[in-house]
């Protein structure tokens, strides 16, 4: 007899278990089990075999996986499937193998960071542009005031005001029951279960207040998740809840508070349950609680629109240009000053008889020139004038010294040796050359003294004695005779001396005395005549008188000065042709034998 089903023998355990029961039952169990579970047992066996097979395949997986992935190629499914695990793996890697990750990312991080910084800077510049732009407006000033009062940097205030935000929903919620009294949404949003949301919000508010508010009456003010923000304004009978995105300005909260107060006033004695049914209230609230209305009323332009208008750049550019110009001008001026100082310095250094030890210059204010100055050197004033130092005060601090510069030495020599007219002098490299004709006395003197002139190393005398002192004297006398009439003493009126007359008289005296001195040498006899003249205004008689007066005055003056006519008094004469109010001395020379 066979039983239907498998003929599996009972295993040892079954036999043992069965041994615990009376024999006939054991068979029944057996049979029942086989019959009832025969299929299952077979299935289990098959499953076991499959499992072994799968395990085997599993072990071969590491080899097959690369092939499979390659075969998948760029299939998006693979990428999707791997996304999650890779993300987690990355997290684990960062936690456990931080250094490896850092090293791996290092080449990428730099460019990433730079890029993001560039991006941020761009945004910042855009915002700053706007900030600067707004600086020039009344609004900007208001923001400044706000920043100052709030102790917050101005830029932050600007950014806060300029950042975009939008209001999605506004709920007016009965305070205790959480029921919705009024609900407004931005137009493009899907409908929602206002009651459930309002109720839940109230419950959450209660929950938060209860758990963290220590029951002190503090309640949920705001909640933020990512860019989504809920503000709750509490009122005695109703709350206002505002669902927003972005960063709203502080002014919005005070606006909401204001609106809530208005609503409470409108409610008056009305019971909250009846409020939703009141048509007047409904319309009023519909107006005031519209998201767009609130946004406008908060005094800021719709954040979205503002961000879309590209900020203009010209104020910034203008400022920059001005700044640039200023800088350029400054540096240009500075450059000019420096150039002039350099030129001055060069010239000063080139100046013979002056050694420049220091040049202090405060641009356009003061210049101090320090150096060693030879008394015979040319004056520095000319150079300083030509330096074009503007209004700068120029100080010359000079210490005396003796220069061996050729030019200076020449001047020294001329001074010390009292070169006569016929002698030319020049100095080259410390060698004094004297050329020309001069009286013997002078030549002897010069020979003696020329070498003593400081800076002269050698003297080359090429002065010929004056061959004919008489001729020389005569020549000179003739010169004087030509000269004297040119020395005209000016008169103001009649015999009143004009300014500068004194010096002319001195010159005349000098020349006359010289002439007297020369007369003997020249073997000539001289005679002076004082000539007076005037301009032609007046009658002849008057003019004549004036002329005579002037001549007399001159003669008297000269006589007083020790000048006599060589034993003869100075004759008087007049010159009607000279059309000047003047007097002069005329020298007449009689040639002697």
């Amino acid at each position: 007899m066979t039983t239907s089903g498998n003929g599996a023998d009972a295993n040892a355990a079954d036999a043992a278990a069965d041994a615990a029961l009376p024999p006939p039952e054991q068979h029944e169990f057996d049979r029942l089990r086989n019959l009832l579970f025969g299929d299952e047992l077979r299935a289990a066996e098959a499953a076991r075999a499959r499992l072994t097979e799968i395990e085997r395949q599993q072990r071969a997986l590491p080899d097959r996986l690369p092939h499979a992935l390659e075969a998948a190629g760029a299939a998006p499914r693979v990428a999707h499937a791997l996304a999650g695990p890779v993300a987690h793996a990355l997290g684990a890697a960062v936690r456990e193998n931080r250094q490896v990750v850092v090293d791996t990312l290092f080449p990428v991080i730099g460019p990433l960071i730079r890029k993001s910084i560039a991006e941020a800077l761009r945004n910042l510049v855009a915002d700053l542009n706007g900030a600067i732009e707004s600086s020039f407006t009344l609004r900007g000033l208001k923001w400044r005031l706000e920043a100052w009062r709030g102790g917050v940097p101005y830029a932050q205030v600007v950014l806060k005001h300029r950042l975009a935000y939008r209001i999605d929903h506004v709920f007016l919620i009965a305070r205790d029951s959480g029921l919705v009294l009024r609900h407004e949404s931005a137009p493009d949003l899907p409908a929602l279960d206002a009651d459930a949301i309002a109720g839940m919000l109230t419950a959450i508010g209660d929950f938060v207040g209860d758990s963290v508010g220590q029951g002190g009456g503090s309640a949920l003010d705001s909640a933020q998740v990512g860019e989504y923000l809920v503000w709750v304004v509490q009122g005695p009978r109703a709350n206002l809840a505002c669902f927003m995105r972005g960063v709203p300005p502080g002014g919005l909260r005070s606006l909401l508070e204001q609106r809530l107060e208005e609503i409470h006033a409108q409610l008056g004695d009305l019971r909250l349950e009846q409020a939703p049914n009141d048509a007047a209230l409904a319309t009023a609230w519909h107006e005031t609680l519209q998201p767009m209305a609130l946004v406008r009323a908060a005094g800021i332009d719709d954040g979205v629109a503002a961000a879309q208008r590209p900020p203009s750049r010209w104020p910034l550019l203008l400022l920059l240009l001005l700044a640039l110009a200023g800088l350029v001008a400054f540096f240009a001026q500075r450059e000019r000053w420096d150039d002039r100082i350099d030129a001055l310095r060069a010239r000063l250094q080139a100046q013979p008889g002056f050694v420049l030890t220091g040049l202090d210059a405060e641009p356009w204010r003061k210049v101090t020139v320090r150096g060693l100055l030879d008394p015979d050197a040319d004056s520095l004033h000319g150079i300083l004038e030509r330096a074009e130092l503007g209004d700068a005060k120029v100080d010359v601090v000079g210490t005396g010294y003796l220069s061996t510069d050729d030019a200076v030495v020449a001047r020294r020599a001329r001074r010390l040796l009292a070169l006569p007219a016929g002698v030319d002098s020049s100095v080259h490299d410390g060698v004094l050359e004297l050329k020309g004709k001069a009286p013997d006395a002078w030549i002897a003197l010069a020979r003696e003294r020329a070498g003593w002139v400081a800076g002269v190393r050698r003297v080359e005398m090429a002065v010929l004695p004056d061959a004919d002192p008489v001729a020389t004297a005569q020549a000179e006398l003739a010169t004087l005779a030509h000269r004297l009439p040119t020395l005209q003493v000016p008169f103001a009126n009649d015999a009143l001396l004009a300014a500068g007359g004194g010096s002319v008289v001195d010159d005349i005296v000098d020349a006359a005395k010289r002439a007297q001195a020369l007369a003997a040498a020249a073997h000539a006899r001289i005679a002076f005549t004082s000539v007076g003249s005037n301009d032609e205004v007046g009658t002849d008689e008057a003019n004549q008188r004036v002329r005579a007066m002037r001549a007399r005055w001159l003669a008297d003056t000269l006589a007083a000065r020790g000048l006599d006519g060589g034993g003869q008094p100075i004759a008087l004469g007049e010159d009607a042709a000279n059309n000047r109010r003047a007097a002069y001395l005329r020298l007449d020379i009689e040639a002697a034998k």
Partner: protein
Amino acid sequence: MSAPAFKVCMLGDFGVGKTSLVARFVRSTFAPKYLTTVGVKVDSKEMLSPQGAPIKFVVWDIAGRSALDALGANYLRGASALLLVADGTREHSLSVALNLLMQSRTALPDAVVALAVNKLDLVERWEVAPTTLAEIRRSLPVFETSALSGDGVEAAFAELATRLLP
């Protein structure tokens, strides 16, 4: 917002099946996790009263508790109706429900109250005797409900609606 809205709070012991009771009845906006985290889950339901008037229930399903604490009392504020829920297979839950009722009365003396005894589909295991409910019926509307089949739930809310609307 033409239908008048009323806040209904559901109170009951742990595991009596408040949430499943209401699950089919309300329009579910929030996930059940709020019940365990915040302690309350709010949903809404619009229906017609037996008299044909529209009414909206905002149902506050308050997490199961055996006594009313401060937070629970907070949640009760402003409620117009209370639905107490007990479990027929646990006698204790019935006394808890009545206890909660007593505690809530101090905060909401005027609220309309109904008692739902849940898990009618397991009536063979009920510990609560029918005579007990018959007794309670003299002071409260009582409904035997089954979340599984939905029996009794509509009736309970219909009763609340009748009593809330003038």
